[in-house]
Structure formats: C-alpha cells, structure tokens
C-alpha cells in the first residue's frame, strides 16, 4: 500500500457549510424534533408556550427526570439498565430527612448521608452485576423493591420535612430556580465523565464489547460498579430536588420515574444494546418528554389521554431514529 492510496482513501465530504449544516441536522434528529415540537406548541397554545415563565417552568419540571436520565445514560452506555433509580431517589431524600429530624444530625451531614446512600445503593447494584453475575435488569429490579420498601420502613409511610440543606435544592438563587442550576451542573458532569475521563471511555468499551474490553486490560468489574454507583449518585441528587421542591421527603416520591429516565435516554439516541449514547442526547430526550407534558397541560388535554400520547411519542421517537440510522448506512 502506497501512501498515495492512503491519501486517496482520506478524501472526505466537502467541509463547506451546506454539507456541515445538513450533517448537523442528520446527527441531531432528536434536537430537531424538540425544536419542531416547541414551534408547534407555541402556535397551538396561542403564544403561551414560549414565555420566560413557562420555559423556566419546563426546565424545572425537566430537572428531576433529566438528572435521573443522566445517571441512567452511564448504565445504558455500559449495556446495562437501572430500574432502581426512582426508588433510590425516594430513599436517599428520605434518609436525609430522617437523619436530620429523628437522628438530629446537622443539615449538611444529613444531605451528605443521603447522597452517600445513593452511591451505596448503586454500588450494591454494581456488585450484584459484576461479581454476582446477575443481569442488571434483575439486580436493579430487586433494588427497586428493596429501596422503596426501606423508604416506607424509615418513614413509617409518612412524609418527613426536609432539612435546609435539602430544601435548598427547591429554592431560588436570585431569579434562577436551583433545579435549573442542578440540571446544568449534572448535565455538564455527565458529559465530562462520558467524554473526557478514563472511566467514561471505558463504559463505551464495556458496553460495546465486554470481552474485547477485558482482553484489552480494562478493569471491567470495577467499571461496572462505578457505573451503577454514579447512577445511584445522580438518582440521589434528583431525589433531593424532588424533596426540596416539596420541602418534604415523600415515601412514594419518584415512583415509576425509572421508566421515564430510560425513555429519555433512548429518545436521546442511546442504544439499549450498549456502547452508544451522549449526555446532550439525554438532555434533549428529557426535554422532549417534559415539553409534551407541559404542552398537553397548556392545551388542557386530560391526564388520562396524556399517558396515551406519551406512550405514542416514545415509540415514535425511537422508531424515527431507527429509520434514520438505517437510511444513512445503506
């Protein structure tokens, strides 16, 4: 092979702006979907949708689901699934509230304990998957039940008021609601971990081909434990936002949110087969879910129908994505 041939293979599609913009649209289908959705809602709602107040509202609503989904992204990239994030969110907030009220720890320590609890819950999932060789679906399904059960045990089934450290997550800094800040911080953290760190790049390898990753010398088991621990930590942060906004930890908080978080990740372009997924995609996925919810509220659609619409949208979004990828590669 001569260098000339190498050069010949190297020729690329033109770098001119037209192809660039077309490629941007092709690579960011979910984002385009979100934009279209916003435009439609803006007109359908008679210009109520695109007001600062409503947009701030949408972002606050999106924050919990997005933070859960950021954590879920790690797991799905590593070819797993985490069904326990909703329960973990509920448990961790409850632990913080209980530490403060019943065990009388300072507010800061109570918060730290709640976050640590999230890490522990996730790490246990990870240990069960990596060393116990349980499929992640089963391990986290068990944890879903265990964590929710513990939440009810600790609280005795009643809400507990949150300490100031947790309530902060539902407050405002100047004009900006803290949940929006949390959303931004956790999103950036997720993107940084996935793109720039050893552990992040290893997740793609483990999710893409676990045997090849092992034979290349990546510490596969340690990576899996870290992946689930991160998911647990993100779930804990989401739990704090939920409890903070209500000023109390509810035993039933975030029930069923695991499914929304998975939907957000998949709408965002990740593959449940592993090895593929981006933080930005997950953010868009979470926003699409929230915007539809918000839009249907603005349009006074009944809650019952909202569920139907939601299901159709999830199926449609993933379907369009599948078609789009097929169309590109053949």
């Amino acid at each position, binding site marked *: *092979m*001569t260098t000339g*041939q*190498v050069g*010949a*293979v*190297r*020729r*690329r*599609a033109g770098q001119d702006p037209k192809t660039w913009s077309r490629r941007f649209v092709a690579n960011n289908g979910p984002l385009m979907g979100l934009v279209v959705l916003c435009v439609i809602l803006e007109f359908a709602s008679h210009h109520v949708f695109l007001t600062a107040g409503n947009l701030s509202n949408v972002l606050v609503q999106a924050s919990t689901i997005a933070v859960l989904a950021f954590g879920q992204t790690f797991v799905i990239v590593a070819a797993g699934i985490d069904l326990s994030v909703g329960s973990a969110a509920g448990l961790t907030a409850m632990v913080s509230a209980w530490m403060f009220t019943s065990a009388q720890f300072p507010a800061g320590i109570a918060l730290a304990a709640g976050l640590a609890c999230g890490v522990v819950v996730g790490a246990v999932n990870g240990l069960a998957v990596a060393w116990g060789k349980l499929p992640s679906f089963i391990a986290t399904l068990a944890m879903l039940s265990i964590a929710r059960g513990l939440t009810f045990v600790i609280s005795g089934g009643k809400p507990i008021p949150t300490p100031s450290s947790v309530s902060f997550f539902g407050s405002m800094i100047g004009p900006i609601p803290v949940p929006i800040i949390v959303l931004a911080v956790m999103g950036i953290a997720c993107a940084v971990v996935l793109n*720039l*760190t*050893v*552990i*992040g*790049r*290893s997740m*793609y*390898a483990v999710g*893409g*081909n676990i*045997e*090849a*990753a*092992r*034979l*290349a*010398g*990546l*510490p596969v088991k340690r990576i899996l434990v870290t992946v689930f621990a991160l998911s647990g930590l993100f779930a804990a942060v989401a739990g704090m936002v939920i409890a903070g906004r209500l000023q109390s930890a509810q035993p039933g908080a975030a029930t069923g949110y695991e499914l929304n978080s998975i939907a957000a990740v998949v709408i965002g372009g990740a593959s449940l087969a592993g*090895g*593929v997924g981006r933080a930005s995609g997950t953010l868009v996925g979470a926003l699409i879910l929230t915007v539809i919810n918000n839009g249907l509220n603005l349009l006074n659609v009944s809650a019952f129908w909202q569920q139907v619409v939601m299901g159709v949208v999830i199926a449609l979004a993933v379907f369009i994505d599948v078609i789009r990828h097929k169309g590109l*590669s*053949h």
Partner: protein
Amino acid sequence: MATWAGREDPSAPTELLRLTGVSKSFGPVSVLRGIDLTVHRGEVMVLLGENGAGKSTLIKLIAGIHRLDSGSIQFDGVPVQFHSVAQGEAAGIATIHQELNNVPQLSVAENILLGRLPSRAGFVTPGAIRRRARQALARVGLSDLDVDQPVGRLGVAHQQLIEIAHALDVEAKLLILDEPTAALTAEEISALFAIMVDLRSRGVGMIFISHHLDEVARVGDRVAVLRDGDLIDVVPADTDQARLVRMMVGRDIADQYPRHRQTDGESEVLLDVEHLCQGKRLLDICLRARAGEVVGLAGLVGAGRTELLRAIFGADHYDTGVVQVCGRRLASGRLRQGIREGLGLVPEDRKSQGLVAQASVRENIGYATLASTAHAGFVDRAGQAGRAEAVARRLRVRMRDVDQPVADLSGGNQQKVVFARWALAGSQVLLLDEPTRGVDVGARVEIYEFINDITAAGATVVMASSDLPEVLGMSDRIVVMNSGRIVGEIPADQATSDQVMALAVRDVESPEASGGANPPEVSGETDRAQAPNHGDPIKDGGNR
C-alpha cells in the same frame, strides 16, 4: 496442483451471474467502481484483492445485504436486486461470510438451519432439525459433533465449519465463500476443497475469496483481481503467483516471509512457562521464549494452542504451574498484571474478542494504555490521538482517519488495529493467535516486518498459527502441540511441513507417547485425564 478439467454439459447455457457496471459508495467513500463480472455454472471464480479492495462489499451486493448505487445484476438469466438475504437464498444464492455470523446461545443445529427451521403448523420439529443438521455436518466432516450444544462454546474453526454447513444446507446455484479457509487448518481446507469440487461437478457456480495464493490454483478456474474498488483483470487460475501479487498490490513483493533471524540462543528468557496444567485442555506445558525470538505454535484445531495463549495471558485460569514474564511470576487469571509486566494478546477472533466495533480506531488502539497515560482520571485525548495516529501509520492501517469506527475498516485493517494496541503499549511478550487471519499478502508482510522490528528491539513473540507456511517461514523455533500437550520442538531452519504435521496428527492418547514433554509431577488429576476427543480432524473429504 492442476486445475479441474471440463464441465458436465458444454451445450447448456453456462452463464449464471452477470454483473454490469456495479458501483457502490459508503457516504463519501467510493468502494466499488463499474465492476463487470460473469460467473458460469460449474465454475469457481476466485476474487483476489488487498484488504479493503471491496471484495466483501461486492459479494454483499450480490447477496442482497447492501444495495447497488448503480449497475445491474443478472442471476440465472433474469435481472435481480435482492432486498434481503432471504430473497437471495430463495433464488439460490448461499453465502458464507467473512466474519462469523452465528447466534452463540443457540444450538449447533439451530444455527445450521437458522432462518429456515423446519416446522409444522408453526411448531418447530426438533427431530427434523437434528436430522438435517447432522446431514449438513457430515458433509463438512463433523458427524461426531453434538448438535445440541450452544455454538458459542466451540472454537473458531468449528464455528466456521458450522457456517459452511449452514450454507450447504441451501440447495444453492451460486455459493459465495468469503475467506472460509482463514480459520481452518490444512486438513479441513482439503475437506472443504473436496466439497467444492463435488459442487462444481454438479454445476454449482462459486465465488471464492482468499488471501492464500496457493489456494487459487488448487480450486479456482478463473481469478478476478480487485484493487481499490476497480476490477483490474480476470485471468486463468494458473497465472503465476508473482503476477497475481503485482496485479493486487501494484508492485512486486520479493519475499513473502521476510524473517530476520537472530540466531543467538542465549538471550534473556522473557517468557517462562513451567508445568502448566488446565483441566483436560492443557497437560504439563513447559515453554520458554527468549528476547529476539519468534516461537511458532503449530497443531491441529483443538490441540490447545488458543487455550495455552489465553492461560499465559491470564484470560483464563489455570490449575497448576508457573508463568513468569520478564522474571516476574504472574498469578493465574490476572490479566492486567500480565499486561503491566509486558504481555499482549492478539486473540483469534478480532470481532468478538479483539475490537469494540462502534468505537473509533483511535479508541481501540488506546484501550490498553488508557489508564496509564491519563492525568487524574482524565484521558490524555490529544496525546492518545497523536500516538494512535503514529502507530496506525507505522502499521499502515488503511482508514479515513483515526476517528473512523473500526467496524467500517476491512478485515485485515481491523487486525492491524489490534496489533497497534499492543505496539502502543510496548508489549515485550506478544502472544499471537492466528495473527494474519484474513490479512492480505501485502499487509501480511507489513505485520511480519512489525514482528521483525519488535523482536530486533528485544521483544519476544509466541505465534500460534494454522497457516503452516507462515509458521515455517516466520518462526525461529516451532513447538508442536497435540491434544493439550507439547509433543515436539523443531528449529525452524530444519523444519518441514511434513515433520510438523507428523507430530501434530500423531496419536498421543497412550501415556508413554508424551514425547519431549516431561510427565506431569504436580497434579494427580490431570495426568490421568485423557485429552478430549472432540477436536479430531476430518478424516475424508466429505464427498458423498
């Protein structure tokens, strides 16, 4: 060996497949340009070309896996454009693909009949499945294989034979074989060729892809040479090899096995394996490799070469014995410790064990050095990209750029990516399992030159290969394995293929026949254990 004379009925219309002006691009990259090719009934058309020349793409167009951009395909007298593999099969085209394409969890029988399981009223009929699977297996010489075991448990060669059986189960008019011999040993290849001769006499047309030039004249009638997406020429199969090489790569290759031997036998021992035992698979293995040396591991399928390399590397546990690398003892199954001490493994199946397909070339090259080059947990992106680019260039990986997904590279270039990983890690003891499987002549020489480079720099290479000329041409010392034992060792300059084969096929089931190896002294269990009987070679050519 002579080519095969005469076809059955010269008066019958013989044209089976005609490609006219076939072109294909993937995105901006044009892979095939204006290919015109005809294949007749009862003809074996060999497709030759470098890695990435477009051979697999061409047959995928014929089989209905990819769509044509332009041009047309005529099959059996009618214009066709298949939209799925099933349509192609229904029309009479069976394909054996380059990379293994099975479902590891399904049984051997189910894999053979995949996509056409016999059923009655929607229910599968297990009896019929087993019967048909056994028939198909008998044709490839595997009549003893348990058809109920999952395919994933078998070695690559057996899996390849099962893929062949899968294709033979179709009553095909056109059989396409994309590098079927890459994973097979000499005897299985002979058996496959016997099957092909039989099919040819019955008027089946075949397209056969291989990187082994000696196979061209053995089974081929005509040779089509592709270079960089263009059809260079179609010539008779008895065309002289040097000319074929020139057509393929556009230049002469003087020496196909350019080994520079360092004859000094006293250099430092880098790899020292003593009395390694693993169940019934490895029996009291003792092996040393010195700096600057290439040790060839020869043997039949099932002789334990892969198991030995994996055990040394730490990919699998062993029961007893000692492995030392550069003077340091490694614990059993501690792969990452081995890598730190300088081990590297190029596994036998790059798709399932070597590469993360969706990840980029850069990432795949960098996995073994990801953590050691990082700063506080952050990947050294620029540094890794630069270094990956440099090794990729050194090994002449043909790609658009290092950010291309490795799945888009041709087979031989994917193999070089696995090599590049260990080159970047600076491995001192490189374990190679079928290192040039599916690699073209030119690229193979480049890999050999790389082996020369690293051994000249003081590394050692242990190379298991079923390609006997490669073992003879590239090793300094040949170690022959047979039924989990080492049965002999021959300096390469004196070795002949007959000598190696004689050791490889010798019956070592009787206790005193363990040849050069010492009797086991450690384990009470393993020395009584007999080598398993599953790996026996094919006895006759599978003719029927």
